[in-house]
């Protein structure tokens, strides 16, 4: 079996267990109904809500594969929302111009991270921390610290709330982004270059790769992904909320990448794994919300602890050390 498929087994198994748990607790979990020409149900909901984290995880996977990390994606999401609100509401700009400009600015924000990491030589965690703080600050300045409603543009509302092919439009966006990324990465030599730089930077430079170019492009791409995620989020809530848009989502994105089997040390990466990782996280969120014990739902304050526990278990299952310990135990019993 190819290595990439083998790596996908554990995350898929974890996702499967979560889904089974949901059906056990709530037999209606898998049911999908049609209302207003749109499929609705928990599964559709999970896919819809997972879109921002899937987008963030795509970029994050590539950054992590170069042995870096990007903490600023949540803040860039907030920037995207605020900028779009400013352009749409205050300046009455055309929707396509708004999208292009916003994505462009977010890509530039990513490029800024790339410059700090690959040219200035700051450690990724510190370099992107700067934009994590500054980005949200800028977003708050753009909106004067207020929540700006965006209700004038039906086109904008379609991004996060529209229906396309009977499904939320976000799903089309997410699937296209994933497919496009995988195609570009794997059908060009970029994937090889990224894995090479993450696997051994010095050797990559000596082999004639542009280490700097590779780093600049992955951080820029991550900025772009965060921009799109920010637009979707703002469209979904039909407002720019600089305080809460994308808050802590960088952590979910990193978690999705790790759950998907990509090592934080860099090197080999698994885009499909990261997508499954993002789905695990969103399913978990939904699970906690929907699970009822003795007719009462789980109190909201348990959410984070339960989430941490499940993630902990999945990480344990993926750990080589734990796998070996289980194998050894089994060998002894045999």
């Amino acid at each position, binding site marked *: 079996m190819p290595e990439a498929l083998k790596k996908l087994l554990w995350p898929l198994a974890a996702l499967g267990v979560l889904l089974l748990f949901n059906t056990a607790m709530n037999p209606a979990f898998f049911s999908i109904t049609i209302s207003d020409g749109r499929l609705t149900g928990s599964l559709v909901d999970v896919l819809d809500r997972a879109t921002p984290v899937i987008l963030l995880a795509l970029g994050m996977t590539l950054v992590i594969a170069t042995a870096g990390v990007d903490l600023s994606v949540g803040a860039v999401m907030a920037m995207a929302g605020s900028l779009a609100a400013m352009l749409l509401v205050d300046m009455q700009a055309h929707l396509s111009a708004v999208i292009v400009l916003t994505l462009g600015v977010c890509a530039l924000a990513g490029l800024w991270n790339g410059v700090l990491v690959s040219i200035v030589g700051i450690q990724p965690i510190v370099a992107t921390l700067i934009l994590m703080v500054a980005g949200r600050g800028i977003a708050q300045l753009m909106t004067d610290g207020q929540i700006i409603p965006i209700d004038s543009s039906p086109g904008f509302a379609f991004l996060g709330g529209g229906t396309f092919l009977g499904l939320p439009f976000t799903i089309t966006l997410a699937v296209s982004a994933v497919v496009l990324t995988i195609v570009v990465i794997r*059908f*060009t*030599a*970029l994937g*090889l*270059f990224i*894995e*090479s730089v993450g*696997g*051994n930077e*010095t*050797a*990559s*430079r*000596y*082999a*004639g*790769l*542009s280490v700097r170019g590779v780093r600049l492009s992955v951080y820029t791409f991550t900025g772009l992904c965060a921009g799109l995620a920010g637009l979707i989020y703002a469209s979904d809530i039909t407002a720019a909320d600089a305080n809460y848009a994308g808050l802590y989502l960088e952590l979910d994105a990193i978690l999705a990448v790790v759950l998907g089997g990509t090592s934080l040390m860099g*090197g*080999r990466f698994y885009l499909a794994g990261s997508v499954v990782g993002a789905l695990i996280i969103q399913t978990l969120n939904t699970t906690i919300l929907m699970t009822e014990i003795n007719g009462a739902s789980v109190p909201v304050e348990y959410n984070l602890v339960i989430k941490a526990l499940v993630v902990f278990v999945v990480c344990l299952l993926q750990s080589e050390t734990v796998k070996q310990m289980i194998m050894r135990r089994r060998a002894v019993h045999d």
Partner: protein
Amino acid sequence: MPRVAEYELVELRGIVKTFPGVRALDGVDFTLRAGEVHALMGENGAGKSTLIKVLTGVYPRDGGTMTLDATEIHPRTPLDAQRLGIATVYQEVNLIPELTVAENLSIGREPRRLGLIDWGTVKRRGKEMMARLDLDLDVTLPVRSYSIALQQMVAIARAIDQEARVLVLDEPTSSLDAAECDQLFSVMYRLRDQGLGIVFVSHFLDQVYAVSDRLTVLRNGRLVGEFETSKLPRLELVSKMIGKDAEQVEAMDHAPKARPAGDHPVVAKATALSRRHAVSGVDLEVRGGEVLGLAGLLGSGRSETARLLFGIDTPDTGTIEINGQAVTTHNPRTAIRNRIAFTPEDRKDAGIIPDLSVRENIVLALQGRRGWLRRIPFHEQQALADQYIKALNIATPDADKPVGQLSGGNQQKVILGRWLAMQPRLLMLDEPTRGIDVGAKAEIEQLIAELCSEGMALLFISSELEEVARDSHRVIVLRDRKQVGELSGEDIRLDSIMSIIASGQEAAAHA
């Protein structure tokens, strides 16, 4: 020299160790006496490492007996083995560079007083431990402030503390220069005379002959034999290791040197090349169809010269011409575009991408030159990989195996394949034969001769002067970061190179 009465300290009989699909050790015997240096010889894959790992508790044995002082032992971890008195120092020094010598020597067994670390005792004990090796150094300085050789001594001192009876040295000399080796050897003699049994693993035949009393040869997981070093001719040893007869080895050693044809153009030329703390005033040119050797001791400026030519470092002054054109911006990418290739001496840190497959490692430089958009189609990648796996005789089950899992010699061949795939005009090899087995060494030397006869220019750097002498058409001798001599044709002999290096050292001493 007063020697402790020799007796059988460690006896391994019929040791068997299997891994899935491989019988790594197949009934191997090994006897270590107290007060001897015993060399363990064999090509990569012979079973040396596995035998050592069985001895030092890294692997449990699957069969056979192992006794220490006639008592059966079953070490289960390296720590376990150490408690029994079997100490090991590996190739890579395992010390914490930022901590002081004394702290490193006491890590994990800190003397305590009232629950706190007793720093006075730490220092005193550190001093005593180094004194056992007859070394007097400031134990309050951080380990990193000492040379690799001295760091290794510290590692040895740390290992043999606590009543060690056996000391295993795995490739201890691979990063030492000649003087440092002598220093290490005198420590080994001293410990031997204190009654320790020392197992010595090295790829350097000279060192094995200089330092060992007896040697055991393994091949393909089996015992070939145990010999007294002084009674085994070198050629015979090599033939036992590689399983070829002596005539073949003789032929290998004296392969006729193809003369460089005069009409090949100059590929690279350096004039008055200088860089602070690297080299000063290097003048060289290398033509197609010739091997230019760079000889000198460690730190003489050999690698530094190659790094300047490949554009890793920028010269402060001096010029580089490639194919007759002066080079202005110089970095590895432009060098590769000019079809210059370079295999660095630190294969692990600067050569291989360990997680990537053999195929990916081989196509890397070629793909890098084509750019990210024009990906080499998979079937072409596979064909390239298969071609070089075959041509260079790379031992790997398939092209998908991660390079990090191959042996050193095969990793080196993969890097060579990477460069050959882009058909370089100049191939610079920095220590291509370091740390690899005798068979692979011979193959690489043969490859150098073949490439050269096909018209490629080669720059060859090796610490083993015999290799430089044997394989080069011209040799530039470097000393203390300066170019001090050049030899060509019949003048290239080991003694002539050594006399240039040595005479300079005398001159320096008189100055």
